[in-house]
């Protein structure tokens, strides 16, 4: 374990934590459901990827690191799909997107 790898993995994990934090703030602050999906769909994907890559670098070159990379690939494929699934269901059920100028009627079903 070289110190360069440790520093690199620390940077990656801290970046991941930063994007997790902004995604959480986004979930709490955005005005309606679809804009909140912007926060979860994008923010969590990049944050998870960064954290997993950081942990894989910390683990070093082994089969466990490869499994962590598998999780990363799976999340990169699954997270946008899950976002798409929720938003599709919401649109078909009849949740209206919030437009600028409306007052906040955040009463989605």
């Amino acid at each position: 374990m070289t110190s360069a790898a440790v520093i690199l993995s620390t940077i990656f994990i801290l970046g991941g934590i930063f994007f997790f934090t902004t995604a959480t703030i986004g979930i709490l602050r955005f005005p309606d459901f679809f804009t909140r999906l912007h926060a979860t769909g994008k923010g969590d994907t990049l944050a998870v990827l960064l954290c997993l890559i950081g942990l894989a670098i910390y683990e070093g070159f082994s089969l466990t690191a490869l499994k962590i990379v598998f999780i990363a690939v799976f999340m990169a494929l699954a997270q946008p799909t899950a976002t798409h699934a929720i938003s599709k269901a919401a649109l078909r059920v009849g949740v209206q997107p919030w437009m600028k100028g409306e007052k906040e009627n955040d009463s989605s079903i």
Partner: protein
Amino acid sequence: MEVTLLIQATDDSFRILEDARNQAKGLLDSARILEDAREQAKGLLDSARILEDAREQAKGLLDSTVGVTSETRQMEKQKIQTIFQGVQETKSGFQNFIVTFSLLFVFWILLSGKFDMFHLTIGVICSIVVAHLTHDLLFANVRVGDTMVIVRRFIIYIPWLIYQIIRANIYVACLALSPKMPIDPHVLRFRTKLESDISWVTLANSITLTPRTITMDIKDGEFFVHALDKRVADDLHAGEMEDRVAHIFMEADHIYIQDALDVARIYVELRKWV
């Protein structure tokens, strides 16, 4: 006497003039007829030229058809000769089974990490069982194309996508941290020219991951995109990302085997007519 001579001469000259006028009129008339004839001839010439052009175009079309088919003949011979003779179903099913089995076995080895005889045997058995159950799932609706080229182009596409994801996240982070939150959400809809479903998946997930947009719904080939900003509409309608995805999966800028076969059928029909 002189007067009568003068009158006669005048009469003569008048007659001559009259004749000349008549002749000139006749000349003019004939000239007009000639003019007409010339114009008709010109029209004929033009139509002849058009016919010539059409003939040349037809020849060029025929030539190009010959060129395309002679190109595709080779691919036909290499790849599809057997497929289009009735054994397509079983053979492609078996190939799918083999490819799925090898992918799954590699995946098993990477998961297991144990290389003794016992675990490898279990791995082979499990891979065979799963590949038998799901060989029609992994490679359903795959168009015939050059797989290696697609994989290489996809790998080249990934860094651009990562750059876009990072941009998107910085944008979302700025929005979430800014006190006034300047957003103007609206819903866009656009049609896509992509065809295969794997390219649709790539396009929809790329739209979700790139700045300011998420794919909400796909209904009858129409993408419903939720955008945080007005500017993004132009980007999507310009279709840069769509072009990239089309380039990866060799759509809209490449001749497919199926298309080539269609052209070959048309060519055979043409040969019958000619």
